[in-house]
């Protein structure tokens, strides 16, 4: 059987995402996403606009999808409110940063040494 392959898309290539779409993707209610923006856990592309601007609502880059899906999971599984969620998200992000740094350092550490 020959199946036509599906093209995998880059998340970065997606157009900017509205708060409603983020809500849909994460299962978080839009009000909670607004709170997360308030606490600095999420940064809209056009962050300088006030939240209640109707004419040009906030939009987000597709990279946010990963963070909000994590947020969605954490809220669902741990019953967290927006305040606790934003703390958790900040910590998760820091851990990811540290893990990336650690990995980078490990790649530079020669493997030969241990092999004698």
């Amino acid at each position, binding site marked *: 059987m020959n*199946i*036509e*392959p*599906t*093209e*995998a*898309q*880059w*998340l*970065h290539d*997606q157009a900017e995402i509205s708060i409603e779409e983020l809500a*849909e*993707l994460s*299962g978080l209610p839009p009000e909670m996403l607004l709170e997360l923006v308030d606490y600095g856990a999420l940064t809209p592309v056009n962050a300088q606009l006030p939240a209640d601007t109707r004419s040009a609502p906030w939009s987000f880059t597709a990279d946010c*999808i*990963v963070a909000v*899906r*994590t947020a969605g*999971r*954490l809220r669902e*599984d*741990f*019953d967290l409110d927006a305040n606790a969620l934003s703390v958790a998200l900040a910590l*998760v992000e820091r851990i990811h940063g540290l893990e*990336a740094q650690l*990995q*980078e350092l*490990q*790649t*530079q550490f*020669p*493997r*030969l*040494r241990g092999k004698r």
Partner: protein
Amino acid sequence: MKYKDYYEILGVKRDASTDDIKKAYRKLAHKYHPDVSKDPKGEEQFKAVAEAYQTLKDPEKRTAYDNLGRHQPGEEFRPPPDWGQQFGEGGFSFDDIDLADLFGSLGGGRSRAGGRRGNIPIPGQDYEVTAPISIEDAYRGTELDLNLSVPEYDGKGGVHRVPLVFKARIPKGVTDGERLRLPGKGGKGLNGGPNGNLYLTIALQTHPLYRVTGHDLYLDLPVTPWEAALGASVDVPTLGGPVRLKVPAGTNTGQKLRLAKRGLPKRREGEGDLFAIVQIVVPASPTEREKALFMELANASKFNPRASFPTGDGK
């Protein structure tokens, strides 16, 4: 269908209060949640715990579960004859599903389903899958065979498992941890709702030669003491084939020699670099002749690599 003892999974008695169930769940969630726990088996454990909690926290589902009767965990069983009428709306085929699917399909189980009535369009679920691929495949781009088994809801409370088999084309330029989206490859939408998406997380497999960070590759480059001291031209394997690299005279262990643009390709344009990390290696069992030559060098050389150490009684 295989029986699972949800009470046992959560470590609570069968007459535990909802509060106790919640407490037990939270304790286990802290221990096993994949976003929190470092336990590599945590995810599996957490899934079992979450599945048990999803059912037991909801009084209606808990009653339905209790009415399945008691069985040994793992034992094949069928719900009592009138169970389907009593708790679902019939339409179950109990053979090709597991307990989680069954309770997922019961009232309110799918939070966005809005009950079982409606003609409201319901978008399909999103799935997340980790795709391990080799560094060579990331370099060239590849096609991945995905073979999943997913629950399919018919919108009337019925559910069964369906295989989801397809190929995904992974473009070149991905690196470790990259997220890709396969539009429409998630769960089926209901009542004209759109299908969900499938999110792929790329996990690069470890490679015998290369280590990856971002789009850069690192490679250990073993050289002899004389190559390091005198300089040499050596062949270095790259993903695009061997490349001749000049090791400058006076190279030390740990020095990084850069092969520009020999790393992984980037998404839009350009490539990462390949870094060869020099490792000076001495022969493990030198011949007599080699030993004699090293001895001669030792006697002739005034070089002191430990000149910066404090002098004194160290001799």
